[in-house]
């Protein structure tokens, strides 16, 4: 039994020490917002925050995590940077299939939290580990700038009053 601090709650999990956090989150704790894309730290879909740092949970053995603060996409809105990034993502309308976006948002939030005014190059360095097969990179760049600076040179911005209806879900 290992005790993990996930999103502010203590979770007792029965997992072998070499089991990656990703599968503990998804299959044992039931937090499926964190996605599986490659399992070898090449795509970033599984990105979570470990003591505020963006890490790839697919290669992060849980054995070493007791007492560390883990947070996932499900509670991203509880941090300032997280809220900003999520709002910017909506304003620029970044997502497509959405599967990579949990990871994109977690990487972006970690960047914005530590860098009030990221340059294009800063964004490249922080986000290059996150693959998007749908190709949302152009809008990700814009959204991160919007989130960080509050003003945007985005190609197109969708005002809030355009509304965001609830989407299909199962």
């Amino acid at each position, binding site marked *: 039994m290992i005790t993990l601090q996930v999103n502010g709650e203590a979770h007792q999990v029965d997992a072998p020490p070499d089991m990656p956090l990703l599968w503990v989150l998804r299959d044992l704790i039931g937090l499926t917002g964190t996605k599986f894309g490659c399992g070898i730290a090449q795509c970033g879909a599984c990105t979570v925050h470990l003591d505020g*740092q963006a*890490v*790839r949970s697919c*290669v992060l*053995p849980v054995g070493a995590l007791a007492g560390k603060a883990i947070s996932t996409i499900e509670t991203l809105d509880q941090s300032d940077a997280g809220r900003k990034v999520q709002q910017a993502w909506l304003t620029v309308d970044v997502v497509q299939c959405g599967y990579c976006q949990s990871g994109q948002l977690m990487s972006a939030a970690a960047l914005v939290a530590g860098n009030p005014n990221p340059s294009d*190059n800063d964004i490249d*360095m922080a986000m290059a580990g996150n693959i998007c097969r749908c190709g949302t990179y152009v809008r990700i760049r814009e959204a991160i700038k919007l989130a960080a600076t509050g003003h945007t040179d985005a190609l197109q911005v969708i005002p809030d009053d355009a509304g965001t209806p609830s989407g299909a879900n199962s």
Partner: protein
Amino acid sequence: MKTLKRLLLLLVVLLVLGGGAYLLLNRTDPSPGTAPPTAGAPATATVLQRGEYLTRAADCVVCHTEPGKQPFSGGVAFKLPFGTIYSSNITADADTGIGRWTDDDFVRAVHDGIDADGKRLYPAFPYTSYTALSRDDVLAIKAYLFSLPKISQRPPANDLSFPFNQRWAIGFWDAVFFKSKRFTADSSQSPQWNSGAYLATALGHCAECHTPRNFAFALKNNQALAGTTLQGWRAYNITSDKAHGIGGWSDQALAQYLAQAHAEGHGSAAGPMAEVVQHSLQYLKRDDLDALVTYLRSVPAKVGSDPININQQPADLIASSAAAPGATEAEKASPGMQLFAGACASCHQWNGAGRETPYASLLGSSTVNDPGGQNLTQVILHGSDMHVADQAVYMPAFAHAYTDAEIAQLSNFVIAHYGGKTGSVTARQVGERRQQQ
């Protein structure tokens, strides 16, 4: 007529002398020898327990097991400059293995490099080191091997060009470069040192990889453990030299590296050394590791032919945070850095620490401080997959999707960022190293 007689006589004399010298130089040491105590194979243990431990300490499995095949079933290819030879099946299978070998057959092979049929073995099999093993230890190893499942698998025939395919010719090589001799304790040294010496030479045969070789592929003993390159990988200088060897390492770090293939501030092992730790060193008892460390400390310091200077404070790295490179470096946005940001930074933090595992920390490793990037390019091209300390340490291989030029750029960036040096890796070199392994 007279002259002719004289000549013939001279010829005969020479042959006799030569033959005598041959026999004299190739005479074997018949003594059983006595091994210094090893913590993992105490006299009190059963012969099988001792055999298993010694077999691991001698790392027999790595050369005698093909990936995915049954342990000790042989067939591993050794690509030498003059051809390829294949390791033999050392399971107890009667036809394809060594099941028919007597104790004396086995001892002769291990001590003197001569197989059961009297054929001389190629010195790729390190009898040159194993000759120092005690007869008891050799037979314990045999007992262990014979306790394992018999595997019927005939290794491919060696494929060597003339004259190297003439096994008898090895006799002359042996005559000149090989001395059959058991380990003899050095009473001027501590018992611990003697155990360490036995582990490092007779069992671990460190020198076979870490000591440079002469024109005839024999060890240059005046350069013992000073480091060299073989099969595409550098075996680093592990003499007590403070700057270029392991002289600067703490005992703790050294022992940890040997046991876990990683030590803080020294990076992680990859390639052949990773295999040694995975299959052999990680099983050594703590006392034996300490003994090994004690011995290595005593190895005369040598600079070695291509010394590596470890930089523990490279400017670019110091200027970086865990999550991002420093401003000046970032501005350059070099192609190598761009590649690193995409494929590498997720595990190898910009500040030299490992992100998800300490095994990914690069600061202080010889690999990133070698301007030639020999092992660096190898591990980028072919990746790493080792199982140590109950965990899988995995790095994917990038050879397939990245060009020689890209991997050269990436390597030189890593050498600059993590080693504070100007890398000299060229696309052509990467192209050559692709072929290796």
